[in-house]
């Protein structure tokens, strides 16, 4: 049978060629396929090169078809091999090295090259285009040794290159011939908003500038413009445009205009030879964007396999800029003329802009800046030449009422055969199919299964909407909630990854686990710092920048920027000497209020930041940790030392527990109480751990809370001895430290984990209890009083607590 196979030779191992091959493989196995690629790589996602430059992806990440794929599909791949021509006479493809491969059909998908301006000096060292992995590597290299870069061309590619170089630490100026950026995709309004946003991100611009010469000796040193001004640059990226790569076609005698000329079935002038992608010219147009590749490839695949297909009639151009934090989109007509009805909405506050162009009531184009949620919808409407209706208007421009259901509705009415993922040709029907038949519940699973969202990722919102529509109520249950907006990972997943990968700092965690905001937020950074400290009590270096102000300053900030100071009074017991010092310090430092707290101690309110170290020093008392997610107070009643009802020494035991377990970080603040008898005067029922003495020992309660959501503590167990009490308290604390979510109080933790699990872990399983106790003891060995520590650390004390006073007298 093999001998009977038709021989298909593909010239070009890029996205256009290989996506066509993928389409063909879905339809038939009748071809024996050979692929030639001039680059020494398998097919990779060229549109993601900007992410490689930006550093958010590696080259491996952007490979679309690895070598196994070629093998599995029986495709002969010749990498690093350029084809010189097609010999029509002998029906053979001839490579530059002289290899000859016979064919029945040939597909030319040689793509395009960077257009290098024909100006003096353009051949100097340090001048590159931005098309392939080699260019990308040159740019990454250049950023290591040079600082000043110029990007010629303020189009899509130029801006992505510029952002990448800025990200790599270079000082980048974009030189653009026109007055507007991306003038082939955006109108003046969107272009100026884009420029302002990119300037905020550190890119410089020189607009309306025509480069006339590149200066320098062997290596480029600068640019000279038509007006004779000069810009210094040690590295130049030419991103002025692309040139269809037609060399093979021209050499073979195929009709070539700007690109390789094809008819509506992608046939060239030579029999059996086809062309798709950027090297192709169809009805006078050469496309330089990804979506048309697929449309062309899909039609060609059907045609070549003998499947009925509509002819290719050209593509509506849509553009999205792939720079993180800058959302720009345009489709169809984008410059309004007298023939257009213009709907527009510009919001300087949110920095968003939306413009829709109508011609005779038909939607013919749109531009979006800032918020591009409607991009897919608009692209479809323009492509289908949809008529504007009141409903559409309300859906696109908003009617002032809540439009929660509108997106789902759009997905609902979408026909099954409509293509959702343009890069990989996945229809809505296919996606619905895998959700219902294979039980998929996440976008990632759908990606792995169908390829949708795999390439540019632009269709992800639509795939999500389809998922939501198909799963209905099941969707919420299925979606994962991360610990904050920066990640989709849960607390348990993060802690597991930290351990598995041995991550040591918050920065490492965020980098390795792909945080969307590279340096996290005020929710995740303190949480990560806690988890790291909990996992590595001896080696984790506490990160001050990741501590909330109160914990960083070891004092509670008040609304006017002053602080409060709460010294320890173990078990709520103080001495006349301490009280005298507190009084003296309060007077000396002009403390506004001395407040008796609910935790049986004193709060000095209104201390100036610069006075904090002096106040601590003169109080000469340990920190009460009133500012921390840590053991706060152990409230006690008078107990057996004095009280006639007392059966246990509550003041004594309270002080012992407070001294033993203070200073340790917990997921949230932690309060305790110890009572001498069941009258419970120290209110055990509202504490994280409440202890009630009785005639034969102690009873332990957990998960009480008197705050936002009051909860009575659950009785956990009874113990006979003080030692047993201390060990169980320590084990509960460590179990909570190890399994609690950051900021989760024990009242929530007990309900989440279940009282039975806690009982099993800390009461019934003696070995586990001992192990927990050992771990908390180890952690306790690492802690020290933060006030003393700060008093001994002059440098940090100065920089953290003292303002710089500059006398700049005029």
């Amino acid at each position, binding site marked *: 049978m093999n001998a009977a196979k038709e021989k298909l030779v593909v010239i070009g191992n890029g996205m256009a060629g290989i996506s066509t091959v993928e389409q063909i493989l879905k339809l038939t196995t009748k071809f024996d396929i050979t692929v030639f690629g001039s680059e020494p790589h398998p097919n990779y996602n060229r549109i993601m090169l900007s992410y490689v430059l930006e550093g958010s992806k590696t080259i491996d990440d952007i490979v679309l078809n690895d070598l196994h794929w070629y093998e599995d599909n029986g495709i002969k791949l010749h990498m690093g091999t350029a084809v010189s021509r097609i010999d029509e006479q002998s029906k053979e493809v001839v490579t530059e090295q002289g290899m000859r491969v016979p064919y029945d059909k040939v597909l030319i998908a040689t793509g395009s090259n960077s257009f290098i301006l024909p100006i003096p000096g353009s051949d100097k060292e340090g001048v590159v285009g931005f098309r392939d992995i080699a260019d990308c590597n040159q740019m990454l290299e250049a950023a290591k040794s040079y600082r000043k870069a110029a990007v010629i061309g303020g189009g899509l590619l130029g801006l992505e290159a510029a952002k990448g170089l800025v990200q790599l630490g270079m000082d980048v100026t974009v030189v653009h011939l026109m007055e507007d950026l991306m003038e082939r995709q955006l109108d003046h309004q969107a272009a100026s908003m884009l420029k302002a946003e990119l300037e905020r991100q550190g890119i410089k611009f020189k607009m309306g500038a025509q480069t006339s010469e590149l200066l320098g000796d062997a290596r480029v040193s600068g640019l000279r413009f038509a007006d004779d001004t000069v810009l210094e640059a040690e590295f130049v990226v030419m991103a002025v445009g692309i040139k269809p790569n037609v060399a093979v076609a021209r050499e073979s005698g195929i009709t070539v205009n700007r690109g390789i000329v094809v008819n509506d079935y992608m046939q060239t002038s030579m029999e059996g030879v086809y062309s798709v992608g950027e090297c192709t010219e169809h009805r006078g147009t050469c496309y330089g964007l990804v979506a048309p590749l697929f449309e062309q490839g899909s039609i060609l695949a059907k045609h070549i396999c003998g499947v009925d297909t509509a002819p290719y009639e050209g593509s509506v151009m849509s553009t999205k800029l792939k720079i993180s934090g800058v959302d720009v989109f345009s489709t169809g007509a984008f410059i309004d003329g007298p023939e257009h009805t213009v709907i527009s909405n510009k919001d300087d506050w949110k920095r968003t802009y939306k413009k829709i162009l109508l011609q005779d009531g038909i939607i013919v184009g749109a531009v979006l800046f800032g918020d591009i949620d409607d991009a897919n919808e608009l692209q479809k409407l323009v492509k289908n030449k949809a008529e504007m209706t009141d409903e559409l208007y309300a859906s696109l421009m908003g009617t002032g009422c809540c439009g929660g259901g509108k997106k789902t509705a759009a997905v609902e009415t979408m026909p099954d055969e409509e293509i959702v993922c343009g890069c990989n040709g996945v229809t809505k029907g296919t996606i619905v199919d895998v959700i219902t038949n294979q039980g998929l519940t996440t976008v990632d699973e759908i990606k792995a299964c169908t390829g949708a969202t795999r390439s540019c990722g632009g269709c992800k919102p639509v795939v999500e909407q389809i998922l939501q529509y198909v799963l209905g109520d099941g969707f919420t249950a299925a979606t994962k909630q991360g610990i904050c907006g920066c990640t989709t990972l849960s607390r348990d997943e993060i802690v597991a990854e930290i351990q598995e990968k041995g991550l040591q700092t918050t920065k490492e965690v965020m980098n390795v686990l792909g945080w969307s905001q590279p340096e996290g937020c005020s929710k995740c950074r303190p949480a990560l710092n806690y988890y790291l400290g909990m996992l590595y009590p001896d080696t984790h270096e506490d990160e001050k920048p990741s501590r909330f102000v109160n914990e960083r300053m070891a004092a509670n900030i008040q609304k006017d920027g002053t602080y409060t100071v709460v010294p320890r009074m173990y078990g709520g017991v103080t001495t006349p000497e301490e009280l005298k010092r507190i009084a003296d310090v309060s007077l000396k430092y002009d403390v506004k209020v001395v407040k008796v707290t609910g935790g049986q101690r004193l709060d000095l309110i209104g201390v100036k930041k610069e006075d904090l170290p002096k106040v601590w020093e003169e109080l000469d008392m340990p920190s009460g940790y009133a500012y921390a997610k840590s053991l706060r107070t152990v409230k006690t009643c008078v107990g057996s030392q004095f009280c006639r009802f007392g059966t246990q020494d509550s003041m004594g035991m309270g002080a012992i527990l407070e001294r033993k377990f203070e200073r340790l970080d917990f997921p949230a603040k932690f309060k305790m109480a110890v009572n001498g008898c069941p009258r419970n005067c120290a209110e055990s029922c509202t504490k994280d751990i409440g202890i009630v003495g009785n005639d034969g020992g102690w009873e332990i309660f957990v998960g009480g809370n008197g705050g936002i959501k009051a909860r009575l503590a659950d009785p956990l167990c009874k113990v006979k001895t003080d030692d047993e009490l201390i060990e169980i308290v320590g084990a509960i604390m460590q179990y909570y430290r190890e399994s609690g979510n950051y900021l989760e109080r024990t009242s929530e933790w007990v309900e989440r984990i279940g009282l039975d699990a806690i009982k099993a872990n800390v009461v019934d399983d003696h070995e586990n209890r001992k192990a927990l106790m050992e771990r908390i003891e180890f952690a306790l060995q690492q802690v020290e009083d933060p006030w003393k520590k700060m008093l001994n650390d002059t440098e940090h004390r100065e*920089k953290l607590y003292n303002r710089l006073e500059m006398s700049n007298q*005029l």
Partner: protein
Amino acid sequence: MNMEKENSLQFYAAGSVDEFLLQIGRVVEINGQEIAVFPLSDGRIFAALNQSPHPKGGPLAEGILSGHYLYDPLYDWKIDLTTGLVQAPDTGQASMCRVKVENGQVWIAFEQQLQMT
């Protein structure tokens, strides 16, 4: 010289760069005006009047820094230090100052507020 003029903007000396801890804000007082100075992890330095745009006011210097964003210390508002704009869903704008660093020396320019005393 602890002052210099540039394009009619008055720049004031605000200490040397090593007087600041990376990613931790510090107050610099210039002619009685409190300026919160923020050294970002990438080495850039931003500065704002030490007054939160929140209606209840309060300082800014002690917030948590992430990239060029600041989470204010009292109400956790997210502020873009490149513009001073408060991020959605909250609204407002912090008064940003111009900063330049020359030879390890930080210079800050700001609009003088009239002292009504």
